């Protein structure tokens, strides 16, 4: 974490508050507390906040504020940031079919890290991941806690279409694509679970603060779950306040 928050301009209507340059539970907690403090005492002209791993995107009305004024207003709020915490969490099980047509880049990820495909699957599915933030597309959760042993850089040229449910790796991050979208992540598998369903009562399945548990499944099991989902008969396995597996292999 930086000693002092950095304020970076993002055009005429936004700025980025940067708290550090790493993914850490500590920074993320600091960000969640800062968001609460800003919302309780919003500087004039504030429109919206997008909290992320290690920064907050602050969007403001340029008729009511500007970069300097907003920095000043935010600095005043920073003095009142508390140390709150949360004790309730969910572990959400995500059945995932690894490799093959479902994860076209898994061999690249294995080769890049001098591992076998089986080892990549074992490492990826043996730890629970904290959901730090939602972003990118509706319902996309950014997960932390992946082993460096399977870290792989993004594609140099992003794909123009990635199917919904794809599980990918980008540098030290892992995540699931909730809708068909372009993107540059290395794809290692796919889940039939819907993370985003615009017609559902709760359109977004995962929340910040959840833990995600990937469960390897066969292609047959994938198809069976997909059928159950289509028939509205599948229930996602959610464990409340269960034991979190944080031992990274």
């Amino acid at each position, binding site marked *: 974490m930086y000693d002092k928050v950095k304020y*970076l*301009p993002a055009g005429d209507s936004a700025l980025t508050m940067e708290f550090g340059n790493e*993914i850490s539970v500590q920074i993320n907690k600091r960000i969640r507390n800062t968001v609460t403090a800003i919302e309780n005492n919003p500087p004039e002209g504030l429109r919206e906040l997008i909290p*992320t791993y290690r920064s907050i995107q602050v969007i403001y009305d340029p008729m009511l504020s500007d970069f*300097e004024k907003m920095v000043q207003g935010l600095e005043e709020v920073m003095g009142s940031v508390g140390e709150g915490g949360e004790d309730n969490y969910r572990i959400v099980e995500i059945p995932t079919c690894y490799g093959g047509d479902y994860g076209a880049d898994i061999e690249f990820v294995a080769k890049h890290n001098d591992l076998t495909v089986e080892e990549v699957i074992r490492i990826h599915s043996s730890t629970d991941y904290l959901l730090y933030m939602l972003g990118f597309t509706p319902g996309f959760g950014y997960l932390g806690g992946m082993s460096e042993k399977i870290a792989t850089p993004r594609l*140099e040229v992003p794909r123009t279409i990635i199917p919904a449910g794809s599980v990918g790796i980008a540098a030290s991050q892992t995540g699931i694509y909730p809708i068909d979208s372009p993107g540059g992540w290395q794809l290692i598998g796919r889940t039939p679970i819907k993370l985003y369903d*615009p017609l559902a009562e709760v359109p977004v399945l995962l929340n910040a603060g959840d833990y995600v548990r990937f469960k390897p499944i066969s292609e047959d099991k994938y198809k069976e779950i997909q059928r159950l989902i289509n028939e509205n008969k599948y229930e996602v396995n959610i464990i409340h306040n269960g034991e979190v597996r944080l031992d990274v292999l």
Partner: protein
Amino acid sequence: MSFKVLKAGLFTTVQDLGRYSYQRFGMSVAGAMDPFSPRVANILVGNKESEAVLETTFMGPTLEFNSSEAIAITGADMAPKINGRPAPMWKTILVRQGDLLSFGGVKSGLRSYIAFSRGLDVPVIMGSKSTFTRGKIGGFEGRKLSDGDQIGFERDLTLSKGSYLKDVQIPEYRKDDSVRVVLGPQDDHFPEESIETFLSSTYSITNEADRMGYRLEGEKIIHKDGADIISDGIVFGSIQVPGHGMPIIMMADRATTGGYTKIATVITPDLSKVAQMGPGSKISFSKVSAKEASEIYRENEKRIEEIRDHIAASTFNLNETRSMNLKLKGKSYSIEVNEIV
């Protein structure tokens, strides 16, 4: 109290000024690509500026009106016609039951906007009527319009006076243009020479340019130490530079967050210009400070305020609009005449 979409055109969607306040759940803002044009169109038909309009790209729709309505067409010039006769742009038009609005080919710009005085009867989702096609929500059934769709109006027609813009208030769209940017938030991830390259080169808009973003092609921009960052927020006009060194301008349907370095951000008043440029157009970038950007923003709002004042001061009675054919030196013309109030 509705209109029927006889032909949908290439890509026609319902848009307002965007779905703000839900970006933290990953919900894209969407909204009009060129915010200036729908704001002015709405003023011309007596609406609040943020009312939903139709945005149509490159090839416009054909609409049949089942009731009378006051409309205004702004943005790209796609040669609009009412019942086959040229219709004015940047001006209030009264259409009657059975009238057909159609478009020819695009003459300048890329996106036209049609505002409706009676408002579009589509659901407000998370505070907005904007269509976000990738998320399949908002607008008309969460999708672009199709042939045969029927869209209702929300209220009675109460507008009795129309208006128009002065010629100098109408933007000119150019194929090649310069847009102003504020450097950052990650300009420090690039060496001095790369910033120089970015600001002194001309970039072409590739065919991969849509409501989500514009991929550009030109001089390669080299990073100091890799193109990846820990994913953070993206705004309308953020310019990302992935590993291949070619900039991408993030537009209305952008993702809320992303993991590529952002060298600069296009200032809001120049986004309308970008939105009216398409594949093959050329863009160059010039730098302004955050302070200058803020001043330019306010000047631009003043310009819209002046348009609002002019519209309020220069009205004509809508019902008095008369179309007639005129022969001049052997050529036929179709003209519209309004009584000036």
